[in-house]
């Protein structure tokens, strides 16, 4: 199985496209923030590490084996500003399991952009890549993030407590998931 979405993917207000070298400043503008890093495994990122991370994402546009990833920048169609990033990861090809992830600039929270972009990712995963189940994870304290998952029609499948130690503190994690049948039946739309 190999799946590569035809890019860019457009939604009502957003354009999902590959990252370019010119995106470093825009990504650094939110990845440097403690209020963004708080809920991620990495700490706040330096400009240099953002540049390296974006370089490492070049070519990640196909799902073709366990662990393969599609990384996309999310830009606003009207302003052309990069407001966040999303990912679709093939976790288990034999069992058709995938994972989605999203990070948005706090300045652009509260407008449903994450929900809109993640909905496009789920559509790619189910209709495009033929996945059977897609899950997403977030820190239990990251209410804005799991609210997005609930709006997408994902169900909370796990609540792990103190299962890992991240940056000096115990982590608490939610896992949400949606099955292809639920998605086709109209979950989250």
């Amino acid at each position, binding site marked *: 199985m190999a799946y590569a979405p035809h890019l860019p993917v457009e939604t009502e207000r957003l354009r999902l496209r590959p990252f370019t070298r010119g995106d470093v400043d825009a990504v650094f503008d939110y990845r440097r923030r403690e209020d963004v890093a708080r809920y991620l495994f990495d700490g706040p990122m330096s400009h240099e590490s953002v540049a390296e991370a974006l370089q490492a994402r070049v070519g990640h546009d196909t799902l073709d084996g366990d662990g393969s990833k599609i990384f996309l920048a999310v830009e606003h169609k009207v302003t052309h500003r990069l407001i966040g990033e999303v990912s679709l990861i093939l976790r*288990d090809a*034999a*069992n058709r*399991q995938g994972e989605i992830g999203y990070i948005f600039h706090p300045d652009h929270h509260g407008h449903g952009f994450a929900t809109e972009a993640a909905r496009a990712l789920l559509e790619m995963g189910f209709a495009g890549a033929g996945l*059977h*189940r897609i899950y997403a994870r977030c820190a239990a304290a990251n209410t804005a993030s799991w609210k997005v998952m609930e709006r997408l029609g994902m*169900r909370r*499948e*796990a*609540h*792990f*407590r*103190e*299962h*890992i*130690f991240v940056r000096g503190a*115990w982590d608490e994690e939610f*896992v949400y*998931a949606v*099955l292809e049948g639920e998605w086709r039946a109209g979950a989250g739309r």
Partner: protein
Amino acid sequence: MTVPDFPIETKRLVLRPFLKSDLEAVMQYHALPEVQRYLDWKARDRVEVKSALEAMVQQHRFQRPGDAVILALVRRADNALIGQASLRWVDATAGQAELRFIVGPAQRRQGYAREAVREMLDLGFEQLGLHRVFARCSARNQASANLLRSVGMRLEAHYREHALFQGEWDEELHFAILDREWLRGSKVKEIHRNMVA
């Protein structure tokens, strides 16, 4: 990390590391399809069980993450080996281990697994210094789920259709307990037992 003292004795069982001479007894349960689901060493015939047993014999202490303590459950009344219980050290920094247990079909429903699981939690938290122990089971396996709940483990996850198992979509439950939850619970029971005595 502390090396546990073996054998460990419970009311009706002796928990000890495996011996090469346990092959016949292990054959009785190791190759069962429902047991295969959560084994590290897939073993369907005598040759495969023999090599799985050779690996298990070495697993009785934590030296580095990935190591396991795998113990044979021997019934004191008749010296019969009726199953196994194990803790696998998956994360040293966070003190995490996975608990597994198997009791042969002829010896089920008599509380042996529960007796062994309680002892493994004592071993994990009090001697091995773990922070959290988790266990997985199929959602179809009500007996295991009830057992894990009965020893105070919380249901943390219910994965639906996350993997195919023998051609069908599988549902998996994860249970977990933290050191402070176990030590608090077992202490209360200890006092209770003393008061009754």
